[in-house]
């Protein structure tokens, strides 16, 4: 009798296939990329552009972009639904924010993403220099689908640079944490290709400044341990004064941060780096296969890193952002009440930084 019941239910199920709120895959517009910008109108301040793949009846793939204005992100989604015959759903996406919108503050839009369970935690975020809409709509000859291009770009960045691996989880985590500030990569679409311009640092949820690619590399080194990183160094040869390029690859670096909080007014932070890498390009004249010259080269690299780190840290202090996470280290040294009473902005501006680097060249490549 029990099996009969199951059979009856199963037969009834066959008739109920439409009732389950089904999302049959070819009726969906699965968003691959969404871009948010500030629009020009006062009542609908947010402009959303979406990009999704379409398949024609013959089986040819294509993409489609739609734009709409609204008061909030879901308001624009509703307006977008009325522009297409497919049902719009979120999914694996790359989300782009226009520059102006980022400067104003992103948290309202991002909180919608946390509330709506359709957007996963792994959606990637990025800032676009200019308008996100233009980037999505730009037609690049060799790229059929901008969003897929962007997504694989993100994946590549994530493997190379830990700092550039940004997604919703990381952004929110660093935003809510009072000891560290979030960062997002910055893309631009001037020129023929979509290219990565640098790293955008945030204060709270507002975009303050952009770090260049070189500064991003240094930031990467300062933030934590690195495996398989790379560093392009441009320095001046001491004797001849010419420009010398040095490219270190397969960098394994160990990072040790220490904070001294004994003096409230002037705290010091010390970062110790231990870098090991192999040389792939050296345009100078020294014969680096010899031990003596290797030591010299290592010293040059160390100087380079120390000078540039100092410059970077001064810049970060000026804009009062802390993507490295010095704040959490300070917090772990103070008691709860002291930390809450502390004016972190002031303390951060008065902080002294010291960077100590030790470079080891593992090998110098195939030739002398």
């Amino acid at each position, binding site marked *: 009798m029990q099996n009969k019941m*199951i059979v009856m239910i*199963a037969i009834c199920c066959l008739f109920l296939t439409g009732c389950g709120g*089904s999302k*049959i*895959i*070819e009726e*969906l517009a699965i968003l691959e990329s969404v871009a948010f910008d500030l629009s020009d109108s006062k009542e609908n301040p947010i402009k959303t552009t979406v990009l999704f793949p379409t398949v024609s009846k013959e*089986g040819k*793939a294509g993409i489609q972009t739609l734009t709409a204005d609204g008061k909030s992100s879901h308001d624009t989604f509703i307006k977008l639904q009325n522009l297409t015959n497919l049902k719009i759903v979120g999914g*694996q996406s790359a989300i782009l924010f226009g520059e102006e919108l980022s400067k104003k503050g992103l948290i309202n839009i991002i909180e919608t993403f946390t509330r709506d369970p359709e957007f996963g935690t792994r959606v990637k975020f990025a800032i676009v220099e200019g308008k996100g809409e233009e980037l999505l709509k730009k037609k690049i000859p060799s790229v059929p689908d901008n969003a897929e291009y962007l997504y694989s770009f993100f994946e590549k960045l994530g493997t190379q640079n830990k700092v550039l691996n940004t997604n919703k989880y990381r952004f929110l985590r660093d935003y809510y944490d009072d000891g560290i500030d979030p960062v997002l990569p910055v893309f631009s679409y001037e020129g023929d290709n979509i290219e990565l311009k640098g790293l955008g640092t945030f204060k709270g949820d507002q975009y303050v400044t952009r770090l260049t690619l070189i500064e991003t590399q240094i930031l990467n080194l300062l933030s934590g341990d690195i495996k398989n990183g790379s560093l392009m160094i441009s320095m001046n040869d001491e004797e001849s004064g010419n420009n010398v390029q040095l490219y270190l690859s397969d960098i394994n670096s160990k990072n040790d941060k220490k904070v001294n909080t004994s003096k409230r007014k002037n705290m010091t932070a010390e970062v110790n780096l231990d870098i090991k890498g192999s040389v792939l390009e050296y345009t100078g004249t020294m014969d680096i296969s010899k031990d003596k010259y290797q030591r010299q080269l290592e010293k040059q690299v160390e100087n380079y890193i120390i000078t540039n780190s100092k410059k970077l840290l001064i810049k970060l202090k000026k804009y009062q952002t802390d993507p490295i996470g010095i704040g959490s280290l300070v917090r772990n040294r103070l008691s709860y009440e002291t930390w809450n009473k502390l004016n972190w902005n002031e303390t951060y501006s008065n902080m002294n930084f010291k960077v100590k680097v030790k470079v080891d060249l593992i090998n110098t490549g195939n030739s002398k």
Partner: protein
Amino acid sequence: MGRFRTIIKRIKILLQKATGFINLHNTRHLNSNKQVAPYEKTISDTVDKSLKVATYENTLKELENCFDLVHRSFNQDEIHIIYFSSLVDSQTLEWEILSPLREMSFSHFDKTFQQSLFKCEDNQEKVINGILEGNVSLFTGGKTYLINVSGFEERSISQSESETVINGPHDSFNEVLNTNVSLIRRRVRSPRLKMIKLSVGEISKTKVLIIYIEGIAHADVVKNLKERIQSVKIDSITDANVLIQIIDDHQNSPFPQFYTTERPDIAVTKLYAGKVVGLVDDSPNIFCTPSSFFDFFESPDDYNQPWILGTGVRILRYMALFITLILTAFYVSICTYHYEMIPLSLLQSIMQSRSRVPFPPIVEAIFLEIVIELLREAGARLPTKIGQTIGIVGGIVIGQAAVEAGITSNILIIVVAVSAIASFIVPSYIMSASIRMVRFFFILMAGLLGNIGIFFALGILIIHLTGLTNLSSPYFMPISPTFFKDWMDSIVRGPFYKIRKGQPAQSMMQNDGEKERN
């Protein structure tokens, strides 16, 4: 008032039936009152017959209108013999009976008839049974003798067609009981190999043998099995599979509970493991008990190879079990409800392949599964000459043509084909047929509720399986009453030095959990 009472009574009976369903089944074996009514006549007839004394005339009258009956008289009608020519071995007949009878004189007969070859029998029913079993009945001077000269054409011992093994013995049982017994007896040369003979079937009187190794097998199992078989009241059984379905604990389950096989090496392995084996005359299949779900996934090939290979193949089989149950259902559930589980790179190809299909994924999937079942069933029934062609036509052409016409998507064809192939990996044909049937249930549940539908279906299946018993011994041993030491031999194939001496706990486990170990 009376009508109200009858309604209440009916509801009560309905409730009792719903919840006490198992109890109703158990009564079939032990409570034979229900079966008495249609058989009353034969009982009274046999009662009558059993009191009759055997005479030549009565026997002839009983067996009249039988085309192959032979009756001869010797010595001027003093000795009559009756036999069935289709059941006796003509050489033995000639040698043992006809020549001596032709040559001997009457005075020597008494002495000859003292020999043990000649069994004296008075009861009419037993005489007729004897003739039906291939004996010659000899009527002389008021006494009746039965001489066993049975022998008939049989299929020679050949390779089993449904259970093939790459490396190992290739003989298999055939339909004659004596041959099967000889195949077992010569592999177990121990005086402790015992065989109990029973007879099942009112009209067919099929011989059933219960074989076990004394001291290893549990006495309760033998007793239980014997009682079950003796309580079967049916006209005839044609095959061992029919018998085991009648004595099953749970007759409404799609899963087979007794393990059947055609191979003597498997039978002997089971005997050594402490299980009880049953042979049925006219059937090449034998059944073993107590068996568990994991017995159906073993094959002698695992034991004839090094243990790492054997373990790898076993794990492959369990993976195949999962694949065949879940793969198509998973495809249906992803395409209908859970688009976000597809990685971005696959998304385009799945969307492309589905774009031409006008049906929702579940209809498509059920349609293709039915087509594959049709192909399989047709392939089993077709005469061999046409079989090959239709197989190729069906498999390749229909699949390709369906995709071109836009009725199905090509990813679905791959999914369905893989899951069909995976279902044939199970060594036991009956179990793989059950799994194929259960697969449809999974697909329906996936189409209804997506992923959680699959898990509900899996839950129902597991609850059903762990509740099954085989002759009161749990079906899902050694996982569900957990005996880690037995995992070495049933879940993976452990090295021979690890398999502990003694018998697995399953053969000792009766009454749902009473534990007595060796």
